[in-house]
């Protein structure tokens, strides 16, 4: 069974990210980066599914894919250090500035190419619920549509897995659904579905030496206008910080005095 995890490298501190005033895109250069925290849960869940398979005598394989600049290799190394079998980096200048649709398209082409090389379908695609920098939670479902497979979002637990189907708990309003799907399927996982493992030293050494192929537009057989900024129907017109509308004032003094002040203010406001 082949499990594939889509990950993203994001700024370690999303609040520290600056916006390029010309293109209205995020400036990602020169800031500390990490694997998107939600994606760590996705990697861990894939590794656990592989362990589940091997304990039932099936062979499992975990592959990891990301789209990003060349330095995104370090995110894939982290996944290999945690225990993933192999990884692919989708990187090309033409991919830059992609919105969620262009990103999902590029990822789908990467997955197709992996499937072509193995001659078999990927059984389960796992994504983190969303990235901490874009926060859209769109790429997973879009990718499932492009791959033509069902998707289950906000999965908080995998209940059971067979060769043909998977049963999960999916967070819903005020509770959760228990839902079953045939394979192949795409899952997006919630924070807290597991506790991601720390890489091992042997894993780190293996990751450092791992051959990670880099596929660009040519390898994926895509046209420049299908990917990156050119392939993105979304345009960011303006980025701004919301203006402060409310004003807080701290009332000080004895509890009685503060209470009297508060009542006065409320009376005046009415």
């Amino acid at each position: 069974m082949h499990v594939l995890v889509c990950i993203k490298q994001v700024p370690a501190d999303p609040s520290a990210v600056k916006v390029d005033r010309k293109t209205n895109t995020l400036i990602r250069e020169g800031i500390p980066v990490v694997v998107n925290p939600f994606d760590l849960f996705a990697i861990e869940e894939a590794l656990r599914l592989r362990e589940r398979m091997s304990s039932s005598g099936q062979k499992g394989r975990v592959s990891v894919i990301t789209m990003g600049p060349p330095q995104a290799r370090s995110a894939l190394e982290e996944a290999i250090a945690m225990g993933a079998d192999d990884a692919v980096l989708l990187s090309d200048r033409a991919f830059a500035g992609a919105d969620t649709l262009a990103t999902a398209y590029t990822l789908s082409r990467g997955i197709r190419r992996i499937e072509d090389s193995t001659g078999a379908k990927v059984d389960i695609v796992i994504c983190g619920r969303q990235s901490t920098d874009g926060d859209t939670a769109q790429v997973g479902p879009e990718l499932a549509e492009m791959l033509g497979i069902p998707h289950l979002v906000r999965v908080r637990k995998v209940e059971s897995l067979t060769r043909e189907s998977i049963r999960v708990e999916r967070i819903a309003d005020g509770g959760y659904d228990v839902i079953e799907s045939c394979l192949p399927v795409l899952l997006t996982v919630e924070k807290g579905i597991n506790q991601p493992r720390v890489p091992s030293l042997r894993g780190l050494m293996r990751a450092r030496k791992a051959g990670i192929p880099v596929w660009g537009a040519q390898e994926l057989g895509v046209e420049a206008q299908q990917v990156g900024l050119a392939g993105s129907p979304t345009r960011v017109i303006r980025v701004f910080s919301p203006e402060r509308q409310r004003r807080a004032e701290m009332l000080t003094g004895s509890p009685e005095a503060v209470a009297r002040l508060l009542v006065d203010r409320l009376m005046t406001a009415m």
Partner: protein
Amino acid sequence: MDYSLTEEQRMIKDLASRIARERILPEAARLDEAEEFPWEIMRVLGESDLFGVWIPEEYGGLGGGVFEQCLVMEELSRACAGVATSYAASALGAFPILLFGTEEQKQKYLPDIASGKRLAAFALTEPDAGSDAGNIRTTAVRDGDSYILNGTKQWITNGGEAEVYTVFATVDRDKGVRGITAFIVEKGTPGFEFGKKEKKLGIRSSSTRELAFRDCRIPRENLLDREGKGFIVAMRTLDRTRPGVAAQAVGIAQAALDLAAAYAMERVQFGKPVGEFQAIEHMIADMATQIEAARALTYSVARMIDAGARDFSKESAMAKVFASDVAMKVTVDAVQIFGGYGYMRDYPVEKLMRDAKVTQIYEGTNQIQRSIIGPQVLREAARRKAGQAKGITNS
């Protein structure tokens, strides 16, 4: 300071530091308060391969040495010295097997120790045999293909939690230190029991227990080296593990300095941060300088051992005594810089001060360390004098 770590050493240090930050630090105060053994963290350390850094690859380790072990100890100790002690005690218990074990013993025990699947412990101290390790009263009597152990061990780190124990007993009390013999004893052996868990000043997440042997029969193949070699086994082991205690002390002291320096810039009195008063600034300067000196000495000794030096008892003792004295002084100063807050258990510096104290006591008190260093220096001086008398220059 740049200590020219190799890429692999950097990787080990970074991984230990990450586990310390992400997994140990958030738990440290709770484990200390609850006096709870950090099993979950031990599991993480096992999965990360860190238990095996000093174990050769043929026994499931990563093939590093004392220096790599020190790098891990320093980083873990920055987050919680109790956790670091539990980690280090396993190495202390297993080092005798690596140094003196037969091939069968190494194959049988070291891979599980390297993976963290089993913890080890080192059982030398007794109620009446602490610094005077030759005064051991636990007896081992040969009976056919077995030995029968009787006696009590005291203050054994990882006691009750560990699966594999290196136990020192005497086969003949009349022979003094030449009667001491080392054995491997597994948890669960009939006649091997654990006493109460001790309540300690510091390193409270680590487990310290009494071990009791009552007609405990162990197979002869669990003898380490030969009868009467136990004292050598213990001393050679401690020579190799004392830099680890030094590294622990460096880690505790570094944590105290980091906290004190940050606090000194934050705490405003008389209209400016207290760190801008020279009294505090100079304390910080001394703390930083002493820590760097302790680290440099510790690393040098660890590298000297790994480079294959034959005799390093003196240097190993120097690293331990210096770094632990630094840790004690620095943590006391850190509490002072924090003032009243430093004395409160809501703040982390009082724990560092409590934890630092043990590094001056265990694995040989600092008085014993000085009794190793002093005579050695004097012997070297006497040799030089004798050399000069013969007209030979000797350094």
